[in-house]
């Protein structure tokens, strides 16, 4: 099995090559040196490629050592928490304009609290979600004059 340690350096190698290809496909500048917009990203992409290869070699040498971060990421309810938080964030982004700031924030915060703080503390969760959303809505829209949907 390929060590998971190698995933990250390989990812960066792909990123640098991707940027390098995209850089050379950039349109030419119409004024001055036509290649002017290309130099900087090209140099940085090549530099990233070099350091990523060094990173790969280092991780290759350590491939037999246990992948500590991965173990932590997979432990307990961590993966559920992370994925659920991101999904809730996605839903929040989708409904933000439709439901308006107040309703969507109460729902988002409430859901996050139930997720992280647990169902057994439902009263705290509901009170905090309501109070905090109302307070932040009031603070932003009335005290700081920021228009919210």
């Amino acid at each position, binding site marked *: 099995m390929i060590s998971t340690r190698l995933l*990250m350096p390989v990812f*960066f190698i792909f*990123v*640098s090559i991707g*940027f390098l290809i995209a850089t050379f496909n*950039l*349109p030419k*500048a*119409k*004024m*001055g*040196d036509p290649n*002017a*917009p290309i*130099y*900087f*990203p090209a140099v*940085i*992409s090549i*530099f*990233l490629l070099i*350091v*990523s290869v*060094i*990173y790969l070699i*280092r991780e290759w040498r350590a491939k037999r050592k246990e992948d500590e*971060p991965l173990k*932590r990421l997979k*432990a*307990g*309810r*961590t993966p559920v*928490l*992370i994925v659920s*938080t*991101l999904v809730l*964030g*996605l839903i*929040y*982004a989708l409904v*933000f304009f439709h439901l308006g700031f107040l309703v969507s*924030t109460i729902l*988002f*915060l409430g859901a*996050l*609290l139930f997720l*992280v*703080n*647990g169902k057994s503390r439902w009263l*705290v969760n509901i009170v*905090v979600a309501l109070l*905090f*959303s109302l307070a*932040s809505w009031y603070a*932003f829209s009335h005290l*700081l*004059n*920021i*228009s*919210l949907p």
Partner: protein
Amino acid sequence: MGVDIQSLVDGLMTALQPTNLLWLAFGGFLGTVVGMLPGLGPATAVAVLIPITFGMDPTTALIMMVAIYSGAMYGGSRSSILLNTPGDGSAIAATFDGYPMAKKGQAGQALAMSAIASLIGGLIAVVGFVLLAAPLADFALKFGPAEYFLLMLFTLSAIVSLSMGNMTKGFISMSVGLLLSTVGIDLQSGVYRFTFGLPQLSEGIDFLVVIIGIYAVGEVLYNYLSIDKPLGKKKRVGEKWITKEQWKRSKWPMIRSGPLGFLIGVLPGAGGSIASMLSYTTERQLSKRSDQFGKGAIEGVAAPESANNAASVGAMIPLLTMGIPGSGTTAVMLGAVIMLGVKPGPLLFENDPNMVWSLVNSMFIGNILLVMINILLVGLFVKILDTPPKVLYPLILVLAFIGTFTLNYSIVDFYLLMIFGVIGLFMKMLKFPIAPLILALIVGGDMEQNFRKSLVASDGGLDIFFASPICIALIGLTILSVCYPLIVNGIKRKKMRTQHKEWDM
């Protein structure tokens, strides 16, 4: 241009206006609260609290930001001492003796000493700021595009090499930041770069979204890894004020650490972490009671706290005079400053002296206010630490989303926020230093523009980068900063080898 007394007095008057004083106290309080939350550092505090300053006039907003920043530095040491969990690198040294003191039932004294030391360090540094900022701004006027480019290069290489042992990862972090800074329309040629046809990306990636994503969302996601672990047990506060004996022991360490911290803060790339560590080790070497260090020596709290606060003031000099931040937290501050429409640079001191000097005076008054807040409200702050993190993290997440929305009123930023949150999580897990990325993202645009301007000025020749003594000095410093970790490692290895030889004999 020496110290302009008239501007200094005008600035003092502005800072003393009741509204500004109120915001100063409020910002300091909020900063302390967020800065002391376990696992969240000053950078996060500034990042999530930036939106509060929207709608304020720039001077007040800047005063507020500085108050939040200094408050967060104070707050960082609260959780170091009480829970043994520093909010960021600059608060680590405070755990060495602060937590042992708390274990002995002297938490109140450690907290009081950290507040007093921060005040003394802060005040020494403000004096340093008054003396040094204007001459440095004058000096920065001599900088052309080539010098600026090399200065940024040096800052980046310094910040990477100071992430010792992780140079490869630091360079990767830096390169990604620089590449991200190229996204959007190229200001010189009008060419769209890496926007993938998304109009929202045409103005580039808003670095505040990246900052809030990595520091706030990423930080919360990272804290999920240990969410069900019980926190360090909080200790009894005990006496809330220091004894005469403790003052006598700490007086000189604080006074020595102030200028040391200040000077380190002024250096680009170095920040509070290095300042506090260096002052801690220096004082341990100087002390007659060096055996007590690490076991609850009061000097061990006083020295690093004085140094770290002095460094946070010192870091404002390169930030305001050249637009070069020294650390992750100051990079966030620079982001906030730019967002307020303030253009940091040598001309800021000529064009808007009132803003600069009211800021300096606010730092001065803010430090005094913060000590009062921190000593009077110690009971309240200790109670806030009782708030369960499981309630706090969702609140921080929601604040991050709201804050992001208020930047551009765009939902696309929500997606970017989450993407950078995940990137932040991985960077923290895999021990990639974050500061190089943030710094590179913020200075990347200017760095490229200066690079190209220099090339245009020299008709494409690279000799312009060696044309002035400042350039040559900066190149030397850059090379030195890259080689520094290699040299240090080499010396360490040699030492180990000789030790082994001695053991073998």
